[in-house]
């Protein structure tokens, strides 16, 4: 069957399909041919790719070629990346140490002017979800203005940086892991040519060419792991050689499923809370032998201790946090070895780095002071009580931990609220149910609120059905067009209305049911249907016998709106907050107001 039409750009007025909007408009067949002759693509079997998703199509539509001048930023530390880069020509320099913000040229997100804000009151259609279908923004080839690192020798002097040569891949961990970039990368040569591959392309190549993921892992050990270890206490105190040795000895462990959301949604409906807890993949069980120091690379783990017939959650740990150090120190300092103090379970998909015990004993423990060792050793030997686990070495030493209701911790984990960077919490003891928040949201978003003031609650705190802007946005996993994406600067999860094809993949994937599919209407409130067009592109008629255009909608945190989220601003009773669930001190402060 001829699938060449898939490589053609579809007419704009027809129902949108995958690759409606290619990543780069300038990619042509000659570029694709050239890429297919290069490493690593020449190693992939084109036959392994399905006819509906050919490798050629992925390269044509999910990649673009970008050229950089010497010193030009390719990616900046902290940006949320939706793509990876393969070096075609020239070299790049990742700077592993953080650069001052003023050097990164990070702009502020453009906000609506006051005039524009007032004008929209009069421009807005009275009908819900009304919008023009044509004339929407074209995002292909949309890249930020070039920005250069000035005075490179001075800036990189004293900062660790490496040179990455032609043929290497970088940025894939941030793109696939949906995490911020960990290093700033600048072009090292003039006319550095990079192939930028958006993450949907990376995912689809990996799906049909498994050797691609092996390549990604090797690449991570070579370039990314070192930066992770350097940012982890107490490894940050070690020499570069010792860190390099630890990187070589580190094992990669993966728990849970990459698309954990489907199991979670199923389990919520069919299992009791203890059953759900037991079904979470175990990283290590209480009392089991600890074979190393565990570092969480991505995702979250639940830390529990046995309590009568059940398990009591004592902490949750996320990226950059570790467990097992107390016990390892205890076992090193004492003859009587102890097993793990806790059971640790993966919440969703978790990447763990395991540094073997002998490496910890040889390299990491000597870096601790005698006082630190004594304290950690004493705590590592304690088997009683349910003191909360602490997250980092400084907290471990000070013995400080945030006071938070045990029930709330269990609730946060049971509902996976931990995933939220902007979870909407409502204090039901203060909320008068006036719905000013809902009305404010509707006024700001096409007369249709982007959240439902409803949701599970515990101890008078409602975890409301509004997009959490997840750390791990699994809604993005199955979007065929990349319409749902993470904003580069602030990391909010947004939907590009133009490239959304209304397939509902994101709505089905959202573990919290916070994405709604809505029929869109024209400015008179009449539903919009796909159209039939002739060869000249002229619209013949609307296909009113088909489903009207549907679009995925969700909270966008009032991106571009002055003053931040309208829901928070509209609450007269200080009952509503958007909070990052990793910021436990902030959450505790809000709860104890």
């Amino acid at each position, binding site marked *: 069957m001829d699938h060449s039409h898939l490589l053609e750009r579809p007419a704009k007025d027809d129902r949108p399909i995958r690759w409606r909007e290619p990543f780069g408009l300038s990619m042509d067949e000659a570029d694709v041919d050239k890429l297919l002759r290069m490493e690593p693509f020449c190693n992939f079997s084109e036959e392994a790719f399905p006819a509906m998703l050919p490798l050629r199509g992925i390269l044509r539509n999910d990649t673009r070629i970008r050229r950089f001048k010497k010193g030009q930023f390719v990616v900046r530390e902290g940006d949320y990346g939706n793509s990876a880069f393969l070096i075609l020509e020239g070299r790049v320099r990742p700077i592993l140490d953080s650069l001052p913000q003023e050097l990164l040229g990070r702009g502020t997100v453009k906000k609506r002017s006051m005039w524009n804000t007032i004008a929209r009151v009069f421009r807005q259609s009275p009908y819900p979800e009304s919008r023009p279908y044509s004339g929407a923004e074209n995002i292909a080839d949309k890249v930020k203005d070039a920005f250069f690192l000035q005075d490179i020798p001075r800036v990189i002097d004293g900062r660790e940086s490496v040179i990455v040569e032609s043929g290497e891949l970088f940025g894939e961990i941030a793109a696939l892991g949906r995490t911020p970039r960990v290093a700033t990368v600048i072009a090292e040569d003039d006319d550095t040519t990079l192939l930028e591959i958006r993450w949907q392309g990376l995912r689809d190549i990996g799906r049909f060419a498994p050797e691609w993921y092996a390549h990604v892992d090797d690449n991570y050990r070579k370039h990314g792991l070192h930066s992770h270890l350097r940012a982890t206490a107490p490894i940050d105190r070690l020499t570069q050689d010792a860190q390099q040795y630890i990187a070589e000895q580190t094992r990669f462990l993966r728990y849970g499923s990459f698309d954990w959301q489907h199991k979670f949604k199923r389990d919520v409906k069919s299992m009791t809370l203890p059953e759900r807890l037991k079904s979470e993949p175990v990283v290590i069980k209480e009392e089991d032998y600890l074979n190393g120091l565990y570092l969480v690379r991505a995702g979250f783990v639940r830390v529990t201790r046995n309590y009568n017939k059940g398990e009591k959650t004592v902490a949750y740990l996320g990226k950059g946090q570790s467990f097992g150090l107390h016990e390892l120190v205890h076992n090193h300092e004492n003859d009587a070895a102890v097993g793990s103090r806790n059971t640790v379970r993966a919440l969703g998909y978790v990447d763990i780095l395991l540094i073997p015990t002998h490496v910890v004993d040889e390299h990491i423990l000597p870096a601790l002071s005698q006082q630190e060792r004594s304290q950690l050793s004493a705590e590592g030997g304690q088997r009683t009580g349910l003191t909360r686990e602490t997250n980092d070495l400084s907290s471990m030493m000070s013995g400080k931990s945030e006071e938070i209701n045990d029930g709330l911790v269990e609730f946060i984990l049971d509902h996976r609220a931990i995933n939220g960077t902007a979870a909407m919490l409502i204090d039901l003891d203060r909320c008068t*149910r006036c719905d000013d928040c809902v009305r404010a949201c509707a006024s700001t978003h096409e007369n249709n609120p982007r959240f439902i003031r409803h949701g599970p609650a515990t101890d008078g705190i409602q975890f409301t059905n509004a997009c959490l802007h997840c750390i791990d946005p699994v809604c993005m996993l199955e979007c065929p067009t990349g319409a749902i994406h993470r904003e580069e600067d602030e990391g909010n999860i947004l939907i590009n209305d133009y490239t959304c094809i209304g397939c509902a993949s994101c709505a089905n994937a959202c573990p919290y049911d916070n994405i709604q599919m809505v029929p869109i209407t024209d400015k008179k409130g009449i539903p919009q249907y796909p159209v039939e067009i002739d060869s000249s592109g002229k619209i013949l008629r609307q296909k009113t016998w088909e489903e009207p255009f549907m679009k995925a909608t969700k909270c966008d945190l009032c991106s571009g709106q002055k003053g931040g989220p309208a829901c928070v601003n509209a609450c007269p009773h200080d009952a509503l907050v958007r909070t990052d669930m990793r910021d436990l001190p902030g959450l505790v402060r809000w709860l104890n107001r």
Partner: protein
Amino acid sequence: MGYFTRRRGLSIFVFLVVSALLLGLWRILYHSLHPDANYTGLALFGVILFLALFNARKKIPFLPVWKASVWMQLHIYIGFLSVVLFLVHIRFRMPNGVFEGVLAAVFTIVSLSGVIGILLSRSIPRLLTNSGESLVYERIPALRTLLMSQAEDIVVAAEKEVESSSLTDFYIENLRPYFKKRQSIWRMLSGRSGMRDLVSRLENLQHYLDTRELPALEQLNGLVEQKHNLDFQYSGQRVLKLWLFVHIPFTYSLLVFAIAHGVLALNFTGRI
């Protein structure tokens, strides 16, 4: 000390200081034979206008002009200040004219409804939270219908199974009216919802049922409790909305009366 306690303490302190200053200023104006009523009247009108702007602010939520919670705090404490200004304006005497009497009555209604509104806003949400699942007000009638159809299904299934009408008779006589009708706000908020009586009658019904009907009885018991929560949520949320139907229309009336009063007063004093 929590944030809210600190905020309340500071706001009350500022309110007391400003009120004392206002009273002091008025005493000076009064004793120096200035037209104090004109000044205090104008100030009072300005204050009322500002208080009324809170509602306008709510209509355009995307305007970055302070958060609604800041407006609310200003609304509360400037509202209290308006009472002080009002007392000063009427020189702590009862108004003697009909128009002034009506105006004063409207002001009193607006002020009192505001105070009641604050008290309700601070007490009912906690009662609603303690009562059970928080529900969206607009969904409650649909949920009530759903509960009734669930109860009917349970009763019909039980009757089919045991071929006895005890449960059905009880349902028609007692439960159906309970599920069908929304309990009055007064009954709900005063703790006379009738649920307790119904639950005890359901308990007594066990004597006339087949053991196979007991699970159905248990389920009905659960539905009665759910219905109680529905009615409680509905009543509580309705009260939280209803007081505004007094406060806001009377505010508009107050503005109209105040303008008329100002024009008349200035006219009589020969200033316009």
